[in-house]
Structure formats: structure tokens, C-alpha cells
């Protein structure tokens, strides 16, 4: 007897499976009902807010974060888990799990684009009564804050959803995580408003994928809190990278797993550095901004 190796069909793989799959997953993401609802709600709120003036920019930026980031996380989770039912057939296809996961992660470009459009809409159309609306942040930091509150959550939420779906089977896991994160951000925001000088509270506020930097104390009086928006943005980017690596680890063969774990260690180290710099950077103390007046430190 002789053993034969049949040739694989020659019509395959002229282009990368990853790019084809990513396009496939992006279309699925764009048609996901949860994501469509999120994009519609974001567009509506931004349109509604731009008709009037807002005193505090937080009153606008929080919505793309909640809808595109939070709902986007749920949509990505469902999208990733939707194929679990067919796992027995899919898992013996030559395209391995990490490529399939990478395709879903690349599909996060859809919410990312929506986040970018939100940023554009806020920058172009949103009427603000004065620079003080953004607290005492300079132009560069102001850009970092709006970026970290609109574009990064729109990317990070779906990536977190994909990572969660690869490791957790519970169908409601993404919704639960969304509520936990929402609760954590709200709690640290409340604590920060009450304990403006506390370093511990600053640390807790930044130990999340989303954070506020300003707070409307009373009409016309906006507080700017401690911390560096740019380094917080770096921390958020590191969290996105962590989510992607954790997602890719599922089903990776031993060689790839080793490389991913090394990369994860490096990214976690960088994340820790970004976090520390975000906490100690920026204003060293909270300040109050009022229309037509210089910022004044808030008494401890």
C-alpha cells in the first residue's frame, strides 16, 4: 500500500483569508441591530445637542462612548459568539481561530469610523459658550480629552467585546460588563467631584477605559481635575492592544501563544507606565474656570 497526499484545490488563497474575512465581518458588524441602534442614537443625540449650547462638553462626549463603545461591545460580543453554534464545522476549517478573531477585531474599524465622525460632528457643529466649557485644558489636551471620550471608546468597546466572547460563554457577559464599567465610571466621577485633591481617587478614576477630566460645578463654573489626558489616551490604547492579544490567544498554536504572551507582557508594562504618567501628569491640583476669568486653584 502507498500513502498519497492529495493536492489542495489550486483556486484558493490568492489573497489573504484575513482581509476577506475582515471585510465579511465588517459587513456583519455594520448590519448588527445593536450596533445600528447605537449609531442611530449617537447621531440623534449629537444632532439634538448641536441645536443648543452646552455648558460642559461632557454632556456631549459621553454619548458616543456609551452607545458606540458600550453597545458596540455588546454587538461585537454577539457577533463573535454567533458562530459558536457552528463551531464543530468551523473549527476544522484551515483558517485558524486567531485569524478569525483578528478579522472580528479588524471589523471594529466600523465603530471606530463612527467615533471619528462623532468627533468631527462635535468639533464642527457643537456650539460652546467659551473655552471655559472645556475647563482649563489647552488645545492639545482638549483634543486628547475629546479623542479619549469619543473615538477610543468606540474602538475599545468592540475589541473588549470580542475578547470577552472568545473566553466567556455566558451570553449576557457583555451586557454585565457594560453595566459594571458604567457603574465604575459613575462611581469614580462622583467620588472625584467630592474629593478633588485625593490621589487615590485620581488613581481609581483612571483605572477604567473611560474617564472624565472636567465637571460643571455650577452654571458657568467648570472644574478641571488632575491627570494627563494624553497619557490617559496612551493607557486606553494599551488596553485596546491587551484586548486584541487576549482575544487572539484563544485557539493559538503553541508557537503563536508564546509570542502573544511575550507581547502581552510588554504591552501590560507599557500600560502600567501610561497609567502612572496619566495619574501624575497634567494639572497637579484641580482648578476652577469661569467665563472671562483666569483659572483658579480649588482650595483643598
Amino acid at each position, binding site marked *: 500500500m502507498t500513502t*498519497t497526499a492529495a493536492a489542495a*484545490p489550486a483556486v*484558493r*488563497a490568492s489573497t*489573504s483569508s484575513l482581509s476577506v*474575512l475582515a471585510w465579511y465581518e465588517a459587513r456583519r458588524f455594520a448590519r448588527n441591530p445593536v450596533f445600528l441602534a447605537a449609531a442611530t442614537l449617537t447621531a440623534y443625540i449629537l444632532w439634538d445637542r448641536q441645536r443648543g449650547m452646552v455648558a460642559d462638553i461632557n454632556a456631549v462626549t459621553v454619548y458616543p462612548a456609551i452607545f458606540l463603545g458600550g453597545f458596540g461591545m455588546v454587538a461585537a460580543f454577539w457577533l463573535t459568539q454567533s458562530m459558536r453554534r*457552528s463551531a464543530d464545522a468551523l473549527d476544522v476549517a484551515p483558517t*485558524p481561530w486567531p485569524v478569525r478573531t483578528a478579522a472580528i477585531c479588524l471589523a471594529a474599524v466600523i465603530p471606530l469610523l463612527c467615533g471619528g465622525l462623532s468627533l468631527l460632528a462635535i468639533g464642527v457643529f457643537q456650539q460652546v459658550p467659551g473655552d471655559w466649557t472645556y475647563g482649563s485644558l489647552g488645545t492639545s489636551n482638549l483634543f486628547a480629552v475629546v479623542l479619549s471620550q469619543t473615538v477610543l471608546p468606540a474602538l475599545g468597546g468592540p475589541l473588549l467585546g470580542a475578547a470577552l466572547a472568545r473566553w466567556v460563554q455566558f451570553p449576557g457577559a457583555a451586557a454585565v460588563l457594560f453595566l459594571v464599567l458604567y457603574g465604575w465610571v459613575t462611581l469614580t466621577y462622583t467620588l472625584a467631584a467630592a474629593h478633588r485633591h485625593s490621589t487615590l481617587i485620581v488613581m481609581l478614576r483612571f483605572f477604567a477605559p473611560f474617564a472624565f477630566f472636567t465637571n460643571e460645578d455650577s452654571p458657568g463654573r467648570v472644574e478641571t481635575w488632575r491627570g494627563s489626558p494624553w497619557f490617559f489616551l496612551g493607557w486606553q490604547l494599551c488596553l485596546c492592544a491587551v484586548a486584541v492579544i487576549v482575544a487572539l490567544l484563544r485557539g493559538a498554536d503553541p508557537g503563536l501563544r508564546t509570542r502573544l504572551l511575550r507581547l502581552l507582557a510588554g504591552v501590560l508594562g507599557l500600560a502600567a507606565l501610561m497609567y502612572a504618567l496619566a495619574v501624575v501628569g497634567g494639572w497637579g491640583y484641580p482648578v476652577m474656570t469661569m467665563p472671562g476669568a483666569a483659572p483658579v486653584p480649588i482650595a483643598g
Partner: protein
Amino acid sequence: MTTSISLRGVGRKFGAAWALSDVSLELSPGVIGLLGPNGAGKTTLLRLLATALPPSQGELSMLGFDPTVPAERTEVRRRLGYLPQEIGFPHGFTAFAFVDYIAVLKEWTQPDLRHAEVRRVLDLIGLAGSSAKRLRAMSGGQRRRVALAQALLGSPAVLILDEPTAGVDPEQRAVLRTVLAELARTSTVVLSTHQTEDVAALCDRVVVLDSGRVRYDGQVTELVGRAAGRVWLADAPDPAASASWRTGTGRYRNVAEHARTGVEHVEPSLEDAYLLLRGSREPDWGHAEELRS
């Protein structure tokens, strides 16, 4: 004779229990039937062949590749079609979209060629007219055929089918037999089923598993031949028969381990032979040893 799949002393353990033990087979192009009672290890064997599970012991070679080595496993998967026993479908997919998605995973990256191939396999199993129908709106038999269609993508060199005809109507079963018989000219098709008539109609060779071990491995005709003289019709059930049932004519079909004389013998079927094998106390009916050597 060319061998496409070779198993030598293969076993698979789940926890402390062996689902499959010391299985040695050499499989060549053609349709090979896999029979056995529930829990015999058929699905475990098929999952090993489909590279969904690694063996706990022994050597498995498929198309000259070692599926335990990641790169070689990918090569096997490029040449493999697998229909699992149970397959779920994602929400919102049409038949075409589902098979198309799997075609992408099977590296059919050129849209025109991929779509043509998806249409071809859907047409093969008689679903060309329903390709735009949502899977949720399809009957169980139609969904089973969609699952089969994805396994047929690219006319794989090895086709592993776990109960492909479950829930499929007789007309479509006949279509399926035609498709598999044609494919088996060049491919190795391993077919697990409880439908002995499918095995009798399609397979030259049958492997019977029992308690994780090969109980019989040989020609279908040889297995059926062993039941000659042991199947007869009578007006009443025979107490000595290992199986006996009332047929549509009102007479009883009796199957017994020991040949009987002085009765109205009938042509045995594969089902009769299988029942005899199952009821037999002989440990090894087949010529597995002969094949191994």
C-alpha cells in the same frame, strides 16, 4: 491500492474513560460505512479523522500528513470536508451566506470562484432554489443538507460524514447517494450512520465499532454473507432467535446466531447481519488483523 488514512493503535480518552481503544485501520478512496450502537465511539473516531480531536495514543496519518503537527493539520484541513453529528447555525444567515462564510474559512478567497463553488454544492444537494432562504425558516432536513453542502466544498479528498441522512427525505437520500458515490471515485468518504440501508447501498467496506473497539472491518457483502441461513420467515416469533419482528405481510422475520434448517430462509440484509454481529458472543467477527498485517 492507495491509502489516504492510516490509524495504528489509535485511542482516545476522556477523563479516565477510553471512548476509543486500539483502533487500527487503513482507509482508501471509496465509501466506508461506520456502524455501531450509541456510545460505540463512532463520533469520537470521526472527530479524530476530522482533526477536531487529537488521539490520546497511537499514530494517525491522513493523506500523508500528521494531524498532530499544527502546520500539517492545516494541510489536512485544506483537503477535508466534515459534517458533524450536530451543527447549529448562526442567526440571520441564509443558506448561501452560511456556506459562503465557511468557503471563506476554507480559503476560497476569490469571490467569483467562491460563489460559483457555493452555488455548485447547493445545487448538488438540491437546494439551489432555496439558497436565499434564511436557515431559520428551513426544515430540519433542509438544514441538514445545508450542513452537508459546506462539507462538499472543493470536492475534498477526505469527507467525514456523521449521520448525513438524519432527517433527510428518501428522495434526497437517493440524491445524496449519487453525489457520494461520484465523489468516492477519487475521495475517501467515511460515513457514520444508523441507517444500514445507506451503508448497503453505498459502501463496499464497513467498519463496526462496539465499546470503542473495532468489532468488524471488511466487505459489506462478506458481513451479509455471514447471516446466510440465519434469517427466516415464520408465522410466529422463534424463541431461539436473537431478534424477531412482525413484518408488513403479517409473518415474523427471525434472525438467529445459529443456522436453522427446515425453515423458510430469506435473503439476509445488512441490518440482519449487523443484528447478528451485535448479538454474537464472538469477540472479533472481522478480518481487522488481516488488514493490519
